[in-house]
């Protein structure tokens, strides 16, 4: 242990020396770019054009943004360097901005002036001749219709006026440049300061510097987010507690599109058709989100925002290889042709298990796929195209595909499961100023089975196909109601069809869901806002409407700080497995099984009530502070019901129990079971505080602390129920995350992340072999400290990059779930090339 500490201290010292020796460096990309941008705009406003342009160029070099190009162009106009101005305007136009027509006209005017100036110079050098006037109506040298001379003159004059009144003056592109925005908390772009929930962002820089290729692992750095790796392919995510195998309490979106697997009520992260290279940022909204997103946004929403078509490098590839043949490969291409933009990506993933549950040489077991090393093997591809129509309308099409096998830990006593199949996602959207229409179709097909079982015991093979079709229409309007009261109103409706065919269910199922939602952000002056949300969802399984309100009060003591109070509820509907299970589960007594009666009691949705008080301060250019305290009351969680011995009454046809021999399973029913709402409820008291600091250029620090106190209440249980319960905290009381990012001009990048998780006590359901029953059992997990690190070197003008990544650098071997595999140290090397 002492050696480990010494080694880690030495490594940190080396990093520090490297950073100090490398001279000038860069800070957090977005923050630093924003600082340069502000300095540049201020200098331009004061007439110091040379200084201003250099600062703006520095900002663009750090983090390219089209608005910077526009403002550089304007500064060159003010400096009288029209040719440079035209060049930057053209680069700005390449980004396909909304105001491209206006800017094209400006360019046309500037080019005319240049020509005029050139002509004037030539005329001065030549004998005087009668100038040739252009024929009215003749085509312009530039493509497109000629702009009326008066209009062009006015636009050029406007451009020539320059940003006299500051960085965000009229005609500039500066208001939101490099400002952090979130879309998920309100389904529209806004500053985190205005968000009605606690929000966190994992930036593209965080993703690149971490070297992590498992998307959910990127979230480990955030306060209030619970991450557990159970298998090589399965990383479960929850927020503010209640993580579990096949975690089902967080709604995961890709660009606002749900990727929740309704079959299991979970997110199978490794089957997503995108990779970390496709992600622009990840937004995490902590706390209930049903008021906007309906069912399943129980204790949080994660929205993966992908890189927009046409943005970023034109193409690239990232290849990684590491311990036990871990392989990651990703290629992508992006481009823009006029109003049309595209982004294509594809990849391959091979993830070994952390540890084997079937050691080599076992003669008593049979396996589902035979490969005892693999946890994940799959290919993926994704494509998105967009087309702009006019200034406001954007239409997009998205297609994603993933195929392969993935290993997950299932529910209840059903453990290691292999899922083989394909996932196809198609989506389309159209956005305008007031109306947005989104629709998607998710199609899954494949087969599954237990990883291994003794010969003679079933692998519970299954075949499944699912179709989810979703359509959402949103109307957005911003308006005033007088006395300085501004509204940002969203009205929406959603329809979702779910169709499932699965061996594990009693029958094929088809459900039609509907939802209506309302969101209004009422700003009363610059310091105070109230946000109200309400959503009503029709849940077919329950055959009733479930309502989800949310209310937030926002007070801004200073322009860039917020005190937020939130009260919200959310729910999770029973998933298909919980609602309609019809699977005879073979017991250790090989000829007997657990069956599910068709007449089992109706499950109620899981419910959460939250109240939260938060504080966010981003006044300083050097640090931000985010904190929250909250209380959650959670009840009606759905769990595997304790099995009940078959009764003579079950033999009566009215009991709805298939009481005889199951010819296909080769078993006789011995117990009945299924799922039930827990009688226990939970009170959760928690606090989160985190800061991100940028004290020096090239140095980026973050740290956060999460406190969780989960108190189980058994007051809703009968004496018999309470007698078999064990305490279920399952969430660490303390979690501490911290990290450092160092970026140097020579191209050396270093990131080190440290995650400390205090001990956990889980209540899991296991099969008691003697009783042949499902019973609760308490499991203790020791605390662990996870240190991840990456060292990278950029070369060839930043096009190429080599890096080494270590997960669990200190080799703190631990489990993150009682049934999870043992996580040890894993190393990978990467080569990345961006064109």
């Amino acid at each position: 242990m002492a050696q480990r500490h010494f080694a880690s201290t030495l490594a940190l010292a080396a990093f520090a020396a490297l950073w100090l020796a490398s001279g000038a460096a860069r800070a957090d990309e977005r923050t630093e770019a924003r600082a340069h941008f502000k300095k540049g705009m201020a200098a331009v406003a004061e007439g110091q054009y040379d200084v201003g342009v250099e600062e703006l160029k520095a900002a663009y070099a750090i983090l390219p943004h089209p608005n910077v190009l526009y403002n550089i162009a304007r500064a060159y106009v003010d400096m009288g360097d029209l040719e440079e101005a035209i060049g930057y305007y053209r680069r700005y136009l390449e980004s396909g901005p909304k105001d491209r027509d206006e800017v094209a006209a400006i360019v046309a005017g500037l080019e005319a002036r240049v020509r005029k100036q050139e002509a004037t110079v030539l005329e001065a050098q030549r004998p005087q001749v009668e100038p040739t006037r252009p024929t009215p109506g003749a085509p312009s040298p530039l493509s497109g219709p000629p702009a009326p001379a008066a209009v062009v003159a006015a636009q050029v004059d406007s451009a020539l006026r320059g940003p006299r009144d500051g960085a965000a003056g009229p005609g500039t592109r500066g208001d939101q440049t490099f400002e952090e925005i979130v879309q998920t908390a309100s389904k529209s772009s806004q500053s985190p300061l205005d968000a009605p929930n606690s929000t966190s962002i994992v930036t593209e820089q965080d993703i690149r510097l971490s070297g992590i290729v498992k998307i959910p692992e990127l979230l480990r750095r955030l306060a209030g987010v619970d991450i557990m790796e159970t298998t090589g392919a399965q990383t479960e995510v929850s927020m503010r507690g209640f993580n579990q195998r096949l975690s089902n309490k967080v709604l995961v979106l890709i660009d606002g599109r749900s990727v929740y697997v309704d079959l299991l009520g979970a997110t199978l992260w490794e089957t997503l058709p995108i990779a970390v290279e496709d992600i622009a940022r990840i937004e995490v909204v902590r706390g209930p989100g049903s008021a906007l997103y309906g069912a399943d946004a129980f204790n949080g929403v994660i929205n993966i925002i992908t890189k927009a078509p046409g943005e970023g490098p034109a193409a690239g590839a990232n290849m990684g290889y590491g311990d036990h043949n871990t392989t990651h490969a990703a290629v992508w291409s992006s481009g823009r042709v006029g109003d049309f933009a595209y982004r294509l990506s594809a990849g391959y993933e091979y993830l070994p298990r952390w540890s084997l549950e079937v050691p080599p040489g076992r003669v008593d077991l049979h396996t589902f796929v035979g490969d005892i090393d693999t946890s994940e093997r799959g290919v993926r591809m994704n494509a998105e195209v967009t087309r702009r129509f006019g200034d406001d309308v954007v239409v997009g099409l998205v297609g994603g595909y993933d195929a392969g096998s993935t290993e997950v830990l299932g529910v209840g006593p059903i453990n290691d499961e292999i899922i083989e199949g394909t996932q196809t996602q198609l989506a389309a959207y159209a956005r305008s100023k007031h109306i947005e229409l989104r629709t998607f179709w998710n199609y899954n097909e494949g087969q599954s089975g237990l990883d291994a079982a003794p010969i003679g015991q079933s692998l519970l093979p299954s075949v499944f196909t699912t179709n989810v079709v979703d359509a959402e229409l949103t109307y957005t309007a911003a308006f005033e109601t007088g006395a300085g009261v501004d509204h940002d109103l969203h009205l929406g409706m959603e329809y979702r069809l779910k169709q499932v065919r699965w061996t594990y269910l009693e029958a094929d199922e088809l459900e039609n869901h509907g939802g209506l939602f309302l969101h209004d952000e009422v700003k009363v002056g610059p310091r105070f806002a109230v946000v109200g949300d309400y959503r009503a969802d029709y849940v077919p399984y329950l055959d009733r409407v479930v309502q989800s309100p949310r209310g937030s009060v926002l007070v801004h003591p200073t322009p860039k700080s917020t005190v937020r109070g939130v009260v919200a509820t959310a729910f999770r509907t029973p998933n298909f497995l919980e609602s309609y299970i019809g699977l005879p589960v073979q017991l250790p007594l090989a000829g007997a099984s657990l069956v599910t009666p068709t007449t089992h009691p109706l499950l109620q949705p899981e419910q959460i009530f939250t109240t939260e008080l938060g504080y966010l301060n981003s006044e300083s250019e050097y640090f931000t502070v985010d904190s929250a305290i909250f209380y959650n009351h959670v009840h009606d969680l759905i769990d595997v019901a304790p099995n009940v011995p078959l009764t003579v009454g079950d033999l009566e046809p009215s009991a709805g129990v298939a009481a005889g021999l199951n010819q296909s399973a080769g078993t006789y029913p011995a117990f009945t079971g299924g799922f039930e709402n827990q009688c226990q409820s939970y009170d959760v008291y928690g606090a989160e505080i985190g800061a991100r600091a940028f004290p020096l250029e090239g140095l980026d620090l973050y740290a956060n602390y999460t406190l969780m106190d989960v108190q189980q209440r058994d007051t809703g249980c009968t004496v018999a129920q309470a007698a078999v319960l064990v305490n279920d905290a399952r969430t660490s009381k303390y979690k501490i995350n911290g990290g450092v990012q160092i970026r140097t001009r020579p191209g050396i990048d270093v990131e080190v992340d440290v995650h400390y998780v205090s001990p956990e006590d889980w209540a899991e359901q296991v099969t008691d072999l003697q009783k042949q029953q499902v019973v609760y059992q308490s499991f203790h997990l020791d605390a662990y400290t996870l240190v991840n690190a990456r060292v990278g070197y950029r070369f060839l003008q930043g096009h190429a990059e080599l890096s080494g990544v270590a997960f669990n650098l200190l080799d703190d071997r631990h489990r993150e779930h009682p049934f999870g595999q043992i996580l040890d140290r894993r190393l990978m090397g990467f080569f990345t090339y961006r064109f």
Partner: protein
Amino acid sequence: MSPRTPITAFAAAAPVALAGVVALAVACGPVPSETSAPPDGREITPSGVVEGSVVYDGPHPCSSNGHIVGAAIVLLFDRRNPPPPNGLATTPVNFGVVPGDVLFASEPRNAGADTFCPVDHGVTGDITASAPFAVSPLSGGSYLVEAFYDYTGDFLPTFKFRDLPEMGDIAGGDVDTVAALEAVNANPDYQPQFVPVDVGTPLPLAGDAAPGEIPNYIIPDEGFVANGVAVSLGSVITTTRPYFYPVGLDVSFSASTPGSLLTSPVQTSATSPANQAGITGTVETNPNYQPVLTIPQDIQVLAPPQQRQTAGALNNLEASYPHLLLQSGLPSAELAAGAAQPFHFQLASTPPGSAFSVWQNATFDTVSGTWVPQEVPEGEGIPSLWPLVVLTKLIDDPDHTLDPASLTEQGSATAPVVVLQAITLLGGDGVPGDGAPDSLANTVSPAAPIFDTATGQPVVAQQDHVTVLLRPAVICFDSLFDATASDKRGTLVTPHLLGTSADLSGAGPALVVPASALASPQLAAQVKGSPVEACLPVGRYAINAVVPDGQAWTVPNESGACSGIEGATDYANLTCTLQPRPVLRSQGTRAVVEIVAATQAANCQGSHAVPAACLPTQ
């Protein structure tokens, strides 16, 4: 861009080297294995597997709804704890199922809802079919593989009234076919000799191990598969299960009329108790739980006659024993319900409903090639008769909350199996209709031979009841579920080793359990050490009747009372309060014998207290 310095050049080279090292050096090596099974590790616990094939040779199966009716049931029993009649196991260690659809994959089947049985339509020939089977997980051990084909489709493993083969089913197992051929004939005493199937690696026996003692086995780290096990199914069961309900008897004997013994029924499980005769001392206050018979835990009986075995002496001896009568079938009022859904008892719906077959046990002497009739361990000329009747102690549940239907027999790692074996009496004197009473004297000296030694065939009597004497002794098996104990035999406990001789002439005290009885093969296989003179464990005892082919009947069973999940038993309407269904009162919670507190507390104190081997550990 600042000019490069040596340190930055070094820094630039370092990640390249690192990436190369990472890519080349770490990629090899196997994924680490979990080093142990739960709870310390996640490795699937190594276990044993028995696999082989089931070979069926019997009548064409029935079919309905496009499926073959029934399945082959393969039952694995621990050789050290076999099922009755040779052991006490009420449930197999594990069992596997080969569905009829699999076994008879190519057999045509009826698509309609009605059940079509070719045998009922003139198809008489047998067919042969086979299919693989595998049963797991198993602990290390030596197993017997018994099997039957559930021809009727009525098998259900969770209910005592449907968990064994019945008439029409095809029995078999992994049997010693040579032994089967030697004992070939239709002798009802025939018991198949099952071939041991060893799973795991045997551990050495202790130095003082008895001859033939079965060692412990462990499963090696890589698991263990016993393959090639051949299960044969071909013996059609021709009799119904020995359905019965119990009646407690009162016995009176007068030395003045030693030739007569008066027995009279005083309690029956078919009704509520009309009086307390025969059930004195019961702790039950709920009449629906009151037993049909009680035995004081310090019961004193007479010793066998020492001087002369007269009818009077035998009557005198018999009268000191508790008597139980098993009435075959069901009470008339329950017959229709018993034969119907959900019970499916193989009973005629009208009286008499059923009949017991009673005959003398015999074993096949492979040396002489003859059948040898057997006596009870005590000898005295008392024939050992089928059905064998055994009482098994139920768990202690004074409030009837854990086991409201009195179904759960005691037997676990922390609670010994406790059994009380009965002596089956002949019905009358062996001559039907002559009015002779069921008595020990008539059983010892029947009016007509009950075994033909020339043919080796017993005379099978059809009786509507069986009377049994309950021995004043129990055997407590406290190591049946101890995996480390290779000697599974139990401790014989009797309240009094000595008793007054049953001789009418007034002979002195003599051994209640003769020494020869302990040396008999039957008891020697079950009892270790000397008898312990101590009181019997109080509690409720279920009643089991067993015949050699493995058929058996037990009361109480699930048909007689509601399980709690079904609600309470509504005796007025004979249904369950939560899940309505018929209730057969005669099979219910009254159908037990209760061993009650001592007649004198002092008899059970000190060394005479109930031995620890008979009591659950706390």
